[in-house]
Each structure stands twice: as C-alpha cells, then as structure tokens.
C-alpha cells in the first residue's frame, strides 16, 4: 500500500460503522468469537495463530485488502481447529464438494423451474 493509498483507504473508511467485507469474513469472525466464548480455544491462542499466518503471507507480499487479511484469518482458524482434532483436512475437502454440489443443484433447479426469474415467485410452498 502506497502512502496515498493509506490516505485513500482512510477517507473511504469514513466515520460510519464498518460491516464485514464479505459474508464469509463475517462467518469467520463470528465463529472465532463464538468458539472463544465456548472456550474451544482462547483468543490469545487465536491471536498467535493469526500472527503466524500473517507472517507467512507477508513473506510473499503485502496485505492491503480485506480479502487477503481474512484469508490469513481463515488459515489461522482452520489450523487451530485441525490441531484440536475438531476438523480433519480430508473431511473438509469432502464437505466442500458436497456443499458445492448442493449449491449447483439449487442453482440448476431454480433455472429449470423459473423461466422468469425476475418476476416475484407466487408459487411458494410453505
């Protein structure tokens, strides 16, 4: 991030409350705080994991976007959960495939079921 970009970013952030940069960033933040509240790990442990992840990332280049920052966050959280044996990498891959397939099904179903997707759906079944 160049000097003028720091200022640009500052002006863009303005004074309003910031919301999350993306829905997945919000879920990561929420999961981390909720997990700490339930004492699955402490925020200090998470902080250490995040520091390590950021250090690793910064060996390859600077962090200057929320996407890069929350990618570090994701890696930190995943690492902690794997360490505690709550998540297994192979299960994660399988679940990702399942979620993607389910999303694809929903998408295909919507396309075939609604020829006028911009019209309000009047055939909702409760």
């Amino acid at each position, binding site marked *: 991030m160049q000097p003028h970009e720091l200022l640009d970013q500052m002006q863009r952030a303005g004074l309003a409350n910031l919301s999350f940069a993306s829905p997945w960033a919000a879920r990561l933040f929420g999961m981390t705080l909720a997990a*700490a509240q339930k004492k699955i790990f402490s925020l200090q442990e998470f902080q250490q994991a995040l520091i390590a992840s950021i250090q690793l990332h910064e060996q390859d280049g600077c962090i200057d976007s929320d996407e890069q920052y929350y990618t570090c966050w994701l890696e930190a959280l995943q690492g902690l959960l794997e360490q505690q044996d709550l998540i297994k990498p192979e299960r994660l891959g399988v*679940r990702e495939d399942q979620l993607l397939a389910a999303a694809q099904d929903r998408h295909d179903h919507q396309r075939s079921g609604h020829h006028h997707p911009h019209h309000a759906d009047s055939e909702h079944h409760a």
Partner: protein
Amino acid sequence: MSHDHKIEKAWQALRTEAIESLLNEIGVLDSAEVDQVVHHYEENVGPRTGAKVVARAWVDPAFRQRLLANGLAACAELGIGGPETESLHVLENTATVHNVVVCTLCSCYPWPILGLPPVWYKSSAYRSRLVREPRKVLQEMGLTLGDDVEIRVWDSISEIRYLVLPERPEGTEHLSEAELAELVSRDAMIGVAHLPAHDIAGT
C-alpha cells in the same frame, strides 16, 4: 450475460462454509451462536460506541479519572464491553503528547469499543511503518504534528487494547454530551486524526 451455469464461489467462502457445517455437525458450534456475534458487530457495536465513552470523559472529570485508571471498568459503567477485550488502556492526548495505536504483528483492536478495524489498520504498510516513522506516516494520513509534540506509539501486543482519548475540540463548551459524541471519529480514537475545532457557524 454468461451462459455458464456452473456455480462460482470464492474458495475462502466454500472453505468457511464447510468448516461451519462440520462444527455444527459435531455439535461444537451452533450457527445461531455465530449469527449472534455477527449481528452484534453489524448492528450494535461500532465507532459510535467509543465516541460515547470519549464524550462522557469530556463532560465528567470523575469518569475521566476512572477511565484512565481502568478503561474496561469505566466502559462497563456505560454498558460497553465484551469478553473479547480483557484489558483496555486509555491514552490521553494533550497539547504536547499525541498517542497513536497500531498492532504490528496482526491487527488487535478494541472490538467491543470501536467495532471492526478499517482495512488500512490491518495493512502491512501501516503495521510495518508506524513504529519506525510515526511522524511521517501520520503526515501522509493527513495529520501534521508540530515538532514540540511528542508522539507515543502503542503496539497492541498480548492482551492489552488501547483507546485514544482525543482532546476536546475548542468551541464545544455549549454542546451536550450527545452532541459531543457526534464529533468524535474512529480515526481520532486510533490516533491518526485530530478532531477539528468546532465550527459554530456550521451548526
């Protein structure tokens, strides 16, 4: 318009969803608990929270003393705080001392007081340069400080979080606490901006 019917999703979004789904399944984390945290940070907490603390400190000298002695306890008097912050150190700006906060190793931030940090606070540039050349970085961010002003940089390490208590702007003697809170900016509470003198003609 694209005719590609394949779903596209950022890998981070998919990975995050998979983690949440697995944690749900084994009963470690309930999505409702995650919703609660997200909702709290989207709706209830933000820089306006910190601004209330600052305004109270300006109008109530006894509160100000308590705030400087124990930030978290004083914030709790206003119903502000959360388990995310264990220790809050409030730094008082004066005519000759300017405080500014950074987290050089990651991005520690007093979430329950200020909400989510802006993207520049998390950037490599801010984190790596502020300690080394604070005067220059602040100047680049639009804050020029005189040579007679000492700059103190506070690195949010371990469990301590920092909040800068800016100086009350001139010309605000007649304002109410709520009106004062409106003047306080997030950037001033991080220490990268001053609060401008109050423009009476503009109100």
